[in-house]
């Protein structure tokens, strides 16, 4: 990728820079500019000038309310009251054949405040003028929001400090709140926003078609409306599940580190061991209690059935017993067969071939009257008898079985209370433990442990609730699909609209899958690039093993044996990681944007400064780097590395401290 370059910055009445410009060295083999200035001269103000131009914010100012106004103080003091002073900063960017001039200007009216002169803010303007080098006559000028869009394409404000980098504020790179911002930015960088917009548009179309379908059938419309609600719930629950899993992983990792640190401290080892055993006991008891609750539920259901049906079971068994004792079960004679003989006026007995006379028929009728159960009934009753006996016997065992359950619950609850009680004691001892060692603050670690355990519990709750919602919502959507299908099947006219809806749903599903794949791909790419660059920057070759960037864009560094070690990186290693991550994000964005770094080696220890300086020099072959050093940072060793490759400029305040010298005017 050919680099995008900051060619020039122009100031008009801007703070201590006054009116002037700085041209940057964009033509050499190394796109490297070094500006050297004492603290307080204006290094950070240069960063602020860039961010003010692009975003109308001076991001490096801690408290904007108490900061000095923008116009150069000397200019304000010299001006008459009522004069309007224009402050502007223009940043010229080169992108291949394109020249883009971002210009922000603002008017300030001079007023008197006591004995001093100051200013009040006036209207501001922002433009982006885009010129093709091959066609200077035709410049496209974009204003305000359109100009903001151009800025976003190059230097998304959400991740401005991955372009305009303060080496003193490394902590911000790895702060939790940054990771979500980075994630959103990668979303934008990877053009996933386009897919997201397309998906939203398709969803709107689907809803519009479903309304059409439901126009003459309010019942169908209600179903579609409910389906849309369930889909929204499902989407939320999926996000919640993802967030919960990330939080769970983080909490587990933090707890592992803390437990490891605590277990290494001898004076508390026996407490640690006891606690580990108790926690295992509590976990096991929790499982046993869950099993108990399941067994109890089974018991309640079983005995609700047995006891409510007991009279019927008993009565049925009594019937069967009565029939058996009266010899009717099983019947010695087939009642149906006898009835057939009588009804058909049979001439002969089918068994013995003997003639059937009137006396025989009377006898047969007497037999029939004696037999009260048919063969079918007999078989039916015989089949169920033994089960009835067992169930009645089981019903009678209610009290013994209940007592067993009750005893089991008492025993489990007592053991759980005992274990939890002792755990509480140990946690209290450790939370108040007075460590003699300066290396480990047991009480602090214990409190951290409790915090992370609570976070883990909360994450598990979130995961549980999300999984439950997902299951319910999915089932409800399926059920509604079936209901809608039933309704609409009857109406031919709806078929075409149904087909359209079906196609839209497939497209939405497809886009969702593509989005996930892109985001996953981007994350992997950033992860592997970060690792490759970090590994090349770091001189310890046997310590670091890998880097992991999770879905929330949180970075974890692992040692070669898989131990998490992000928290134990030295300042130099943090800097290297921050640079590596920055460069990886730049690469992922598809644009080779410049880096402006205030105090690039500020936190790097002396013996590593040369190494880091060399690495940055190497990077500048492919990417513009503008570095703002203090004279102390720009040691002779560093100077030696940069002397033949960088454009070096010294800045200092004028004798009356009103303006920065070293800027071209």
């Amino acid at each position, binding site marked *: 990728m050919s680099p995008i370059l900051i060619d020039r910055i122009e100031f008009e009445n801007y703070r201590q820079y006054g009116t002037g410009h700085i041209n940057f060295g964009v033509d050499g083999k190394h796109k490297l500019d070094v500006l050297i200035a004492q603290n307080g001269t204006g290094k950070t103000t240069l960063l602020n000038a860039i961010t003010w131009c692009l975003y109308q914010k001076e991001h490096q100012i801690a408290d904007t309310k108490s900061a000095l106004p923008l116009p150069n103080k000397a200019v304000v003091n010299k001006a008459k009251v009522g004069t309007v002073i224009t402050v502007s900063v223009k940043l010229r960017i080169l992108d291949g054949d394109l020249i883009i001039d971002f210009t922000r200007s603002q008017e300030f009216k001079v007023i008197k405040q006591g004995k001093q002169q100051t200013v009040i803010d006036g209207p501001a303007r922002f433009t982006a003028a885009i010129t093709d080098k091959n066609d200077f006559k035709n410049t496209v000028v974009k204003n305000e929001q359109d100009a903001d869009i151009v800025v976003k394409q190059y230097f998304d404000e959400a991740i401005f400090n991955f372009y305009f980098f303060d080496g003193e504020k490394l902590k911000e790179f790895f702060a939790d709140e940054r990771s979500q911002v980075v994630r959103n930015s990668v979303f934008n960088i990877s053009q996933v926003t386009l897919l997201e917009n397309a998906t939203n548009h398709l969803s709107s179309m689907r809803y519009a078609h479903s309304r059409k379908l439901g126009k003459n059938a309010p019942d169908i419309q209600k179903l579609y409306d409910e389906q849309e609600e369930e889909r929204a719930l499902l989407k939320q629950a999926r996000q919640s599940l993802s967030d919960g899993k990330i939080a769970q992983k983080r909490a587990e990792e933090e707890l592992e580190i803390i437990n490891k640190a605590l277990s290494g401290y001898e004076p508390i080892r026996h407490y640690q061991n006891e606690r580990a055993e108790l926690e295992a006991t509590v976990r096991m008891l929790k499982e046993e209690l869950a099993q108990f609750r399941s067994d109890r539920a089974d018991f309640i259901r079983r005995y609700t059935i047995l*006891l409510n049906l007991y009279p019927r079971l008993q009565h049925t068994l009594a019937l069967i017993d009565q029939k058996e004792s009266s010899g009717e079960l099983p019947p010695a004679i087939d009642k149906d067969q006898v009835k057939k003989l009588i009804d058909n006026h049979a001439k002969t007995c089918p068994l013995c071939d003997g003639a059937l006379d009137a006396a025989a028929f009377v006898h047969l009728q007497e037999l029939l009257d004696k037999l009260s159960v048919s063969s079918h009934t007999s078989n039916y009753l015989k089949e169920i008898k033994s089960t009835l006996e067992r169930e009645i016997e089981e019903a009678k065992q209610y009290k013994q079985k209940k007592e067993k359950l009750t005893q089991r619950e008492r025993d489990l609850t007592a053991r759980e209370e005992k274990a939890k009680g002792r755990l509480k004691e140990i946690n209290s001892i450790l939370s108040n433990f007075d460590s003699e060692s300066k290396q480990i603050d047991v009480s602090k670690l214990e409190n951290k442990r409790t915090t992370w355990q609570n976070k883990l519990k909360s994450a598990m709750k979130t995961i549980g609730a999300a999984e439950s919602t997902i299951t319910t919502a999915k089932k409800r959507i399926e059920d509604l699909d079936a209901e809608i299908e039933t309704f609409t099947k009857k109406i031919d006219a709806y078929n075409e609209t149904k087909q359209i809806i079906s196609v839209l749903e497939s497209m939405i599903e497809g886009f969702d899958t593509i989005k996930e794949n892109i985001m996953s791909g981007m994350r992997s790419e950033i992860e592997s690039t970060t690792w490759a660059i970090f590994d090349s920057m770091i001189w310890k070759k046997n310590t670091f093993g890998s880097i992991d960037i999770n879905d929330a864009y949180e970075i974890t560094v692992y040692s070669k044996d898989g131990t998490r070690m992000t928290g134990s990186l030295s300042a130099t290693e943090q800097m290297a990681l921050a640079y590596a991550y920055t460069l990886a994000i730049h690469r992922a964005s598809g644009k080779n944007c410049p880096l402006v770094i205030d105090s690039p080696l500020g936190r790097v220890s002396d013996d590593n400064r040369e190494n880091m300086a060399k690495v940055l020099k190497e990077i500048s072959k492919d990417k513009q780097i503008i570095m703002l050093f203090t004279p102390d940072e720009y040691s002779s060793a560093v100077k030696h590395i940069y002397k033949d490759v960088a454009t070096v400029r010294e800045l200092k305040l004028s004798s009356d401290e009103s303006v920065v010298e070293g800027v071209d005017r």
Partner: protein
Amino acid sequence: MAKTEAGDIIYINEKYRSFIDELKTNDVLGFKLLDNKESFILAVALGVNQPTECKKKRFGWTRKSYIKSADKAMWASVLLGTATTDEEINQYADLDKSIELCEQCAETGFEILKQQYDKAEGDAELFERRMMKALDLLYTQMVENDI
């Protein structure tokens, strides 16, 4: 003649579906892993003394073909347990007829279950403990005192 599919199905009132889904989602009384046949017979037992015909929309819940030999005694006794004459015994020795009565008992039984669950305001533990307590009284009445 082989049973048609329609003839094999055992129905419940459609209005109880979402209630049963809620019990499954919250795993109340072991409903999460309970098959429909089991939940049906539970409702039958609860409503056995007050059968009500379902006049609303019905929903296929389980199948007659799922009733195993070990289950048959219970299902059969719902109807047979009311027979007082030999004629009734012969008529009631019919599983299909028994299932028709079971459907009416379940109509009441699900309503009773829902009311008890609503009284516990969705607290599964409270609901189960109350059901457990009710069993003590039921045992005394049905088994000890043989009412």
